[in-house]
């Protein structure tokens, strides 16, 4: 009986050191929108708006590419005392913007290439000269995509470009087996 009592007492009958309070706020959105969802027709129309939007991504992409080039130049000029994470972040953030926005404005290939670049930047330990050269190759390719206005996935050419960049990354990792161990 005593054991059962222990089970029912809050906090095992000990004084709690920290308190967590749970609240369920009023669901204002639910009250306003009601029930039933949106029809497929509305969602299809919204999707069409997205696909047919005529915004020119080029000026925005040029800004992000310039920012990536700044990051590359800073990495090239970085000394050993510089914080590697900060140097990498300077290249990672514009790459992330290119990935995020490319696909929103019909440049799916840009998203694909920038995503591969992000994955590379998320793995490398130090932004050494070989790594920075690879980032530069990504930059050159993305610049070509924008200036060539290659929309969509770029077809066969897009696949070849992505493969070439992926191979360069794989060769880099294979060259440094002491640092990079496959999962």
């Amino acid at each position, binding site marked *: 009986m005593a054991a059962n009592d222990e089970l029912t007492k809050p906090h095992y009958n000990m004084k709690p050191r920290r308190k967590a309070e*749970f609240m369920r706020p009023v*669901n204002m*959105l639910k009250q306003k*929108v009601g029930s039933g969802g949106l*029809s497929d027709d509305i969602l299809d129309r919204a999707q069409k708006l997205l696909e047919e939007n005529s915004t020119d*991504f080029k000026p925005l992409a040029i800004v992000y590419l310039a920012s990536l080039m700044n990051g590359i130049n800073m990495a090239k000029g970085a000394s050993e005392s510089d914080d590697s994470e900060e140097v990498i972040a300077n290249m990672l953030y514009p790459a*992330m913007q290119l990935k995020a926005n490319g696909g929103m404005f019909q440049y799916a290939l840009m998203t694909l290439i920038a995503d591969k670049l992000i994955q590379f930047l998320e793995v490398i330990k130090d932004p050494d000269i070989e790594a920075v050269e690879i980032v530069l190759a990504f930059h050159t390719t993305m610049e070509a995509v924008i200036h060539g206005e290659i929309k969509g996935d770029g077809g066969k050419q897009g696949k070849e470009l992505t493969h070439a960049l992926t191979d360069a990354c794989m060769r880099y990792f294979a060259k440094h087996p002491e640092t990079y161990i496959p999962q």
Partner: protein
Amino acid sequence: MAYDFSQVSVLIVEDNQPMVDLLASLLEAYGVSKIYSARDGDEGFEVFKKELPDLILSDWMMKPVDGISFTRRIRNDVSSPNKFVPIILMTGFSEKRRVMQARDAGVTEFLVKPFNARDLYRRIVQIIERPRQFVRSEDFFGPDRRRKRESNYAGPRRREEDDRNQNNSAQQVAEKLK
């Protein structure tokens, strides 16, 4: 019956104007009529205080105040008029570490860019139909970071591993307790 978004107001916090326009057109297609926008977290907080939107869509990376700091401010600032407002954070990051960082700041839903019209709609539906309870502890205030699992599901299990894994983990726990 269908959702009626005509009385819903949404604040878009995003420094990229073409993206603001795109989001606004999507929301208008859903039926939202009141849409506000701001270019960073600082401006966003001022618009939020003035307009009291029902929902916020915020980008992560903005200068000078990013989406994470903006979210923290909404959840914790004494002058915040609605600390419970749902916030959808949009970003190109998809790494688990980033998702956790966003959750720890008090974000309600996470939306990876690029996304399509149904992706955004699904996040909004989650907020409407499966709202998270809020937690206040010593170091956190925001939506419960654990998504509640339905324990009373009685339908068929479509993946054999479900039962096998459940049995295995139950056995492992039992072994450990012995």
